């Protein structure tokens, strides 16, 4: 293995391959920055081009794109509150408040440090577990999918404990939206009003662009001004402070990376959930959870380390069973097949070196993207000084074009605009958008997992306790539920005692 690994590294570092890797990094950064576009679109456009390429070049370019997307997506999340990609949406929560305080450079510095570290962690984990990929993937059946989805929803619900009721309302809306479309279990079609567009459900990327990017631009247009509230407070040289802060919070990096790798490996759950859960977990573990959302650097470090670690996780089911761990991986699967690599039980044995070179490309590209990000910080952070009247129309136009480009579907553009208004209203009336996003993504997985488990278990609920994995998940869910009530109970208890005393 070490031998092949070395050969793969030498292969990727050869000038011919390096050019493709670098091209991939640039494409990834640009596609990451533009809201709506993203890894999936970039890889889909790349797919036909790779047909004439050597496998190693195609993998270098794909790895370059996948490794750099996160950096690009988070730059727009921080500067514009418009995440360039789904998984970067969690970075908005604390990244954008920092930009408003004039500390965009700090935030970008943190991203540039946390994402390659997360990527590195994910790759190391991947190399260790690669031989066991099969067994890991087989641990998750319909009951486990259901429980993972419930766990995700619970994690996010309790992290919005400050306004629990509003969080529940947002989560409820998200669940309702997730049920729109063709029901893959029973074959019925729900809430589509006869429209073919809604047959496939409410698509995630246009929703995210609306909920975050469009909503923010509507706000900026209505309230006027610039992103950074006080132009004189903008520091363009905070990048190294961001780098140092990330290294100081190495525990957050590790927690985020573990979350990213694990959740990335579960098909149908995917990167966006991974980064949100990493964020929620860090918030929950912090001594001052209420200060999250106001510009805590840990609120960037956690999702960003998960963001790059998740790609390694998502590779496991993609390679071992041809089941994509994420939308990007679905397209990557196409690149594999176009080059005659059939995913399945023998792929590790047959193409070990190709897989190592992909892994190596992924790591190298995250590092390259960070270097580019850090060196451009000065110019990027200046965007927060651009007036809203100029910025908003440009961002809205670019986002909507990006949304249209995903599937060439006009319906996606309309949806992004409608959800944009919903997002603005939620912003205006202080409803958290996180539960909506998570419920929208996980609602379908939860429903399908539950229905299939009931069919497999012939209606017996004990199927949710039939494996070690499912029992562990049930325990985790119960623990996080009770934990979240501990502070609440303690407060009640303290109040009662002090009440007794007085």
């Amino acid at each position: 293995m070490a031998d092949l690994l070395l050969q793969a590294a030498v292969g990727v570092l050869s000038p011919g391959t390096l050019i493709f890797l670098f091209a991939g990094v640039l494409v990834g950064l640009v596609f990451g920055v533009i809201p709506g576009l993203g890894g999936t679109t970039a890889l889909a456009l790349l797919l036909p081009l790779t047909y004439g390429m050597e496998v190693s070049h195609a993998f270098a370019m794909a790895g370059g794109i996948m490794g750099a997307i996160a950096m690009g997506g988070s730059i727009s999340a921080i500067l514009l509150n418009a995440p360039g990609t789904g998984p970067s949406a969690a970075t908005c929560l604390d990244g954008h408040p920092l930009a408003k305080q004039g500390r965009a450079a700090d935030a970008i510095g943190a991203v540039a440090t946390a994402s390659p570290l997360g990527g590195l962690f994910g790759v190391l984990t991947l190399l260790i577990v690669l031989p066991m990929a099969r067994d890991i993937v087989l641990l998750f059946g319909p009951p486990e999918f259901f429980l993972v989805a419930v766990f995700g929803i619970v994690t996010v619900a309790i992290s919005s404990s400050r306004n629990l009721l509003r969080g529940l309302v947002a989560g409820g809306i998200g669940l309702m939206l997730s049920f729109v479309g063709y029901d893959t279990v029973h074959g019925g079609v729900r809430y589509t009003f006869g429209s073919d567009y809604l047959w496939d459900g409410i698509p995630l990327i246009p929703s995210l662009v609306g909920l975050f990017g469009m909503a923010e631009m509507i706000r900026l247009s209505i309230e006027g001004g610039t992103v950074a509230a006080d132009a004189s407070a903008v520091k363009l040289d905070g990048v190294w402070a961001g780098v140092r802060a990330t290294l100081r919070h190495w525990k957050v990096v590790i927690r985020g990376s573990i979350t990213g790798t694990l959740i990335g490996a579960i098909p149908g759950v995917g990167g966006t959930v991974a980064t949100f859960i990493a964020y929620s977990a860090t918030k929950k573990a912090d001594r001052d959870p209420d200060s999250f959302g106001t510009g805590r650097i840990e609120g960037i470090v956690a999702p960003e380390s998960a963001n790059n670690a998740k790609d390694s996780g998502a590779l496991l089911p993609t390679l071992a069973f041809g089941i994509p761990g994420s939308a990007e991986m679905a397209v990557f699967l196409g690149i594999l097949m176009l080059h005659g690599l059939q995913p399945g039980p023998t792929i590790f044995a047959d193409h070990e070196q190709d897989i190592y070179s992909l892994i190596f490309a992924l790591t190298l590209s995250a590092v390259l993207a960070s270097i580019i990000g850090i060196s451009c910080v000065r110019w990027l952070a200046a965007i927060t000084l651009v007036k809203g009247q100029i910025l908003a129309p440009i961002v809205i136009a670019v986002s909507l074009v990006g949304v249209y480009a995903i599937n060439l579907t006009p319906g996606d553009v309309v949806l992004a605009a409608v959800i944009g208004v919903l997002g603005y209203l939620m912003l205006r009336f202080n409803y958290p958008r996180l539960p909506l996003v998570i419920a929208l993504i996980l609602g379908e997985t939860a429903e399908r997992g539950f229905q299939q488990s009931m069919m497999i278990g012939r209606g017996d609920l004990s199927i949710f306790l039939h494996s070690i994995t499912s029992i562990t998940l049930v325990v985790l869910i119960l623990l996080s539920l009770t934990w979240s009530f501990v502070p609440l109970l303690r407060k009640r208890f303290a109040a009662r005692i002090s009440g007794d005393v007085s």
Partner: protein
Amino acid sequence: MPFNVRSVLVATLLACVACGGPGEYPEKDITVVIPFNSGGAFDAYVRALAPGLQKRLPGAVNVLPKNLPGAGGRRGASDIYRSRPDGYTIGIFNMPGVLIPQLQGMSIGYELSKVTWLATLGYDHYVFVVKGDSPHNSIDDLKALGRNVTYGATGPGSTSYVATNIVNETLGIPFDIITGYKGSAGYLLGLIRGDFDAAMINYSTARSYLESGDIKALAVFGTDSDDPAIADAADLGAPELGQIRVVRMMGGPPDLPDDIKSMLERAVLEAIDDADFQSWLESTGNEAHPANSAATAAAVVEMTEFYDKFQQLLD
């Protein structure tokens, strides 16, 4: 052969008359619609075929694959159907995937009997599989279980779901289907994990797992079996089940002019024989089973009659 300016001129003139007027087809790029996302088997097929197709068409035009996913392939199919019959939009059809909703009477925006069929690229036959270490070695073993045999499939109305229904009804096996798996790779994984007893799966997805021993085949449909241990439709006494397979057909909108149709038909058939395409097929374990325009149209009629007979099992 001596070069003769006059005969070339005459031939060109005749060719122009034959194609009926000015502007020889093709004079601009040709779009091949793929009704699925990039990354699937249909997508890979078209993309592997496109360079060969481009080489075989006169003029310097490009053949551009275009993914139009949505509504289980119906969006792409109706886009091909509604395009102008000028030969610049053609596409690939997933049969019987797009046929079943038509027979179910859904409003789908196309009528397959009116499509101008160009050629068949090939088919993917179905394998009746159980887990590799399953104690059951024949369909009779499953029948003898004394309970309903459980199967995994994608959603109701999908090819895998309808095929499972038809095979079990025809062979008289009591059964339940666990639906909702994502694609054939999804329920293949479910079978290996042990979610259910058996599955009907397309061969190209199953191949490497059959070779590794993760799953084993009890029967094949849509092709003849050359292994005495594996039954085919005829061995099971139900030859009509030979219709059960996924067929990849190329077609264009209704009323495509005959000259354009024959040019495209010939180009597609020649592109299938292209050495690059053949080596791609081999490396991915796919097999080409080309058929011309007339044979494809006949196969559509035959397939429609077959699934129509099982009307009540379609949803």
